[in-house]
């Protein structure tokens, strides 16, 4: 059954040095507040999995939390490069990181297979690309019925998954809606999980009979962090703060501006700062 914990306590008890960590959210519902907490607690030697490393992993990488990155698209969407990621790969700053590179299809299938308790994902992919030359984990199986060769990769089975969701109920069930990404799969594929939410409600109330819900018994800890996805967004709560994605390009371009920003906005702040961030972005009640 999910426990309701303060974010600090949730990260302290569930994220460990050396863990394989998956923080997911596909543009929507990216768990930025949890990322900041992991940085504040100085977690080290993480293997981090994420389809689109994005600002959240640019920050973890730039602060030296990461030894290895498993990913499929490492940019600032619609803006350009992730400068901290590039600095780590191109120059080894603040430390060298290993990279395990996949395609989106592979990553999505690897989470799906992990959630399904399988050791591998099988799909039609990687045909004619150089990725198998640089990622030894891209192998193949042969269909015993048609002889077709299909791509095979290990499923994702992270030690801990961290996501942001819309809300939880008192029983600890978690509701997702809108762009769902791979978050449900990431939590089901992981041994442990932390879900930050906008709020806890008494009851989800009227909803689709097929609402996307992570039942309480599949979730580790729930932490209430209003605004916790900022500058990403939470459908029905607040909008994406596009300007910050562009601003990040300037902040992260140089090491010193990056470090100054991290000190001021992460190391010297707490999760409660996020409610403030989204004050001007709230959408009207649905």
């Amino acid at each position, binding site marked *: 059954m999910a426990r309701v914990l303060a974010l600090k306590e949730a990260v302290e008890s569930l994220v460990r040095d050396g863990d394989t960590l998956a923080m997911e959210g596909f543009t929507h519902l990216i768990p930025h507040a949890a990322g900041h907490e992991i940085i504040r607690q100085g977690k080290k030697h993480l293997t981090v999995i994420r389809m689109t490393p994005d600002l959240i992993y640019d920050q973890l990488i730039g602060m030296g939390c990461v030894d290895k990155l498993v990913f499929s698209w490492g940019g600032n969407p619609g803006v350009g490069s992730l400068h901290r990621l590039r600095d780590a790969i191109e120059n080894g700053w603040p430390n060298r990181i290993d990279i395990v590179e996949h395609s989106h299809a592979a990553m999505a299938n690897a989470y799906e297979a992990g959630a399904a308790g399988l050791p591998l994902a099988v799909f039609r992919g990687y045909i*004619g690309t150089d990725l198998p030359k640089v990622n030894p984990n891209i192998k193949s199986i042969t269909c015993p019925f048609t002889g077709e060769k299909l791509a095979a990769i290990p499923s994702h089975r992270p030690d801990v998954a961290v996501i942001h969701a819309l809300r939880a109920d008192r029983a600890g069930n978690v509701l997702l809606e809108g762009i769902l990404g791979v978050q449900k799969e990431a939590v089901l594929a992981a041994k442990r999980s932390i879900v930050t939410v906008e709020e806890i409600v008494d009851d989800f109330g009227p909803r689709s009979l097929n609402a996307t819900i992570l039942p309480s018994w599949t979730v580790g800890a729930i932490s209430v962090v209003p605004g916790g996805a900022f500058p990403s967004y939470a459908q029905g709560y607040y909008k994406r703060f596009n300007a910050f994605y562009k601003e990040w390009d300037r902040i992260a371009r140089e090491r010193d501006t990056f470090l100054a920003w991290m000190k001021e906005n992460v190391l010297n702040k707490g999760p409660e700062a996020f409610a403030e961030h989204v004050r001007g972005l709230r959408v009207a009640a649905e």
Partner: protein
Amino acid sequence: MTPSYKPNEIMTIAAARALKNEDVCFVGIGMPSAASNLARLTHAPGITLIYESGTLATRPSVLPLSIGDGELCETALTTVSVPEMFRYWLQGGRISVGFLGGAQIDKYANLNTTVVGPYDKPKVRLPGGGGAPEIATSCGEIFIIMAQGRRGFVDKLDFVTSLGHGDGGNARERLGVKTRGPTRLVTDLCIFEPDPETKEMIVTSIHPGVTRDQIQENTGWTVRYADTVAETPPPSQLELETLRELHARTARAHGEGGSKE
């Protein structure tokens, strides 16, 4: 009278024209998104647009900055999970046209969005493949939009991120791929299409006022031309106005210069 327009504009408009009302289109951010939505707002109102974030049949009024903006979800017929998107919709063969771009392209329309320089010691680390490796082989056909220049149009890719026509001829067939691959490459100077035999991308239409010298100067291989090369019809008033209004709405919605292209 032909209105005046920018190279980027005719590139987007020429790409939009290639889309049909019946197409189901897997859209990437930037110019593909502008071209697809322009087609929807002009000659192809029934086109189905799909973004890899899981939004099916979306009808955004402004261009998204990212692949998963709320606008895409709110205007979609429905939104599915990302594993479902890649399994049932892309791999399931339900997309007729995929749009791709890249940092580097070769004459067989293979694309590199991974690294410039050696993989282990990159000169420039690019974002990586994202959806492209499987878009390139699972969609019925592929349209590529890229501004033309020597840095991008290269004789040899540093890394093949997504398959075009491989080393030409029946390369795709030899790899067991049943889809058509790149059928159109639209640049700010001209339009390339694959030679039916060799599958080399050859110029079939040149944008108004562009010379063959300009095209060659901006291409890292010796450009070949179709027997009959057309002149790309200039943007119509409607196309240009619709595109500019779309960009203006987008800029207002995003608070500044609109989506980056």
